[in-house]
């Protein structure tokens, strides 16, 4: 009973929040609704017993990605009239994307119902039972059967990170480097000098 109530609560909030992401006029509100949607999706994950994925969803998406997203949106000065002007132009593309996504969903559901997806233990035979904790089960799959895909994903992320660094790391003329060790080593004797110059003499630096 409680599960049913929780499921309908979480899923209706997810859908409502997702709708609000699109319909709210203020982009900051949109991001906040997106966060609500993420958080409730995590609730749904807990309901199906995938508590590890739920926690990761909250830590990674809500705790880090969405914060940066919010950060950027807050700083941007967005012109709403300009944004709305492109709506009709991009509508066909949007509808096309929506159709593709719906097809994929139906395909996925069909594949799942056909029961041919091999999940479970490394040899792909038995399904994971409730006795094994989430994390162990995932680790066993991730580091044995899917180790190549896992490492490939890591490599792709590394390349993306290096790309971002290369794009933003430019030498500018006003760049000044700070050497912490040098600053800490400095002593008053080396950096302060008492001078008593004659009138009209000045000091040499």
């Amino acid at each position, binding site marked *: *009973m409680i599960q049913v109530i929780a499921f309908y609560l979480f899923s209706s909030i997810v859908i409502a929040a997702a709708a609000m992401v699109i319909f709210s006029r203020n982009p900051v509100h949109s991001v*906040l609704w997106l*966060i609500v949607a993420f958080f409730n999706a995590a609730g749904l994950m807990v309901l199906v017993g995938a508590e590890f994925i739920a*926690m990761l969803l909250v830590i990674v998406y*809500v705790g880090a990605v969405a*914060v940066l997203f919010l*950060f950027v949106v807050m700083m941007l000065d967005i012109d709403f009239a300009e944004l709305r002007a492109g709506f009709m132009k991009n509508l066909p593309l949007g509808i096309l994307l929506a159709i593709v996504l719906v097809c994929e969903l139906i395909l996925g559901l069909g594949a799942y119902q056909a029961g041919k997806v091999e999940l479970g233990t490394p040899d792909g035979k038995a399904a994971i039972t409730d006795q094994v904790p*989430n994390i162990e089960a995932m680790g066993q799959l991730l580091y044995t059967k899917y180790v190549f895909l896992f490492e490939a994903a890591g490599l792709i992320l590394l390349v993306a990170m290096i790309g971002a660094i290369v794009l933003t790391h430019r030498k500018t003329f006003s760049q000044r480097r*700070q050497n912490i060790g040098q600053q800490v080593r400095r002593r008053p004797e080396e950096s302060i000098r008492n001078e008593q110059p004659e009138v009209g003499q000045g000091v040499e630096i």
Partner: protein
Amino acid sequence: MTAFFQSLGMSYEWAWFTATIAGILLIALPLMLAVAMVIYVDRKVLGAIMLRRGPNVVGPFGLLQSFADGLKVFLQETIIPSAANRGLFLIAPIITFTVALAAWAVIPFNAGAVLADINVGLLYVLAISSLGVYGVVISGWASNSKYPFFSAMRAAAQMISYEVSIGFILVCVVLWAGTFNLNGIIEGQRGHGFGIVNAYAFNLLLFPMWVLFFISSLAETARAPFDLTEAESELVAGYQTEYSSMSFALFWLGEYANILLMCMLNAILFFGGWLPPFEWEPLYMVPGWIWLFAKTFFFFFLFSWIWATVPRFRYDQLMRLGWKVFLPLSLLFIFLISGYLMLTRWG
């Protein structure tokens, strides 16, 4: 507790429901009391270090000072700036406060005395504490004012930076304990040092991690010397500038609840939680929660001590410490610890 309510003649579902509600109240209400007393302790310690008396007027030894402050704040008028984003302005303190309370659901106060004994307890704490930044960011943005906005940006960057290293430090502890369950982590510390000392901190590989964790928890809760989000010399009062009355009090309570949580995590992850410090039979005469509270209080004392003695960091120094010192160090220790464990335990 469910069994107790069942014995009163309730069905299992209702007994579970009532037991959960009772458990929440049993944690949240004493927590609020603890926060009030801890604010008093904070001010007393600060006063003692600065050779002042601290609060000493309201009640015996000034013990009721926090309650008097609470009453004062409660009677104030809630002012909402006309340029503020009304809804978000009011939601922000509620988020801070709720999130600060929610993390306490998985904290074990004694063997078995925990509201939600879930497998991913530590991850839950990490997830909930990563939500805390929203209260600050939203309040800074919704105030529609310069200083709160600066403070919100600082807070967002600071919390994310230090959460990364906290995550890696927690991985070290989890590797050693072999579980994410907080009770399991505490049990893993039984007799950890030569069979006598109940603490992960008594371990050459984990002790540096505790030092990093302690400093990171200072930064995560924006306590001095990392209190750049409300640096009064630069930002008035940071993100709380536009707040008054209860909305301000909620920030205050949430902040101190978070500080207490971080102190308690220090005690649980590295100092044996509700286990007595030494594996010696007479020490078990003292109930576990007293040990836990004593350890937590010790860490809180360290927090106030640091507040009174250490000058504030500059913002670039803060970022440098987080990304260039803590992150590589904690990563290095993940390698060291997993290597050591492979050699001794799994090899």
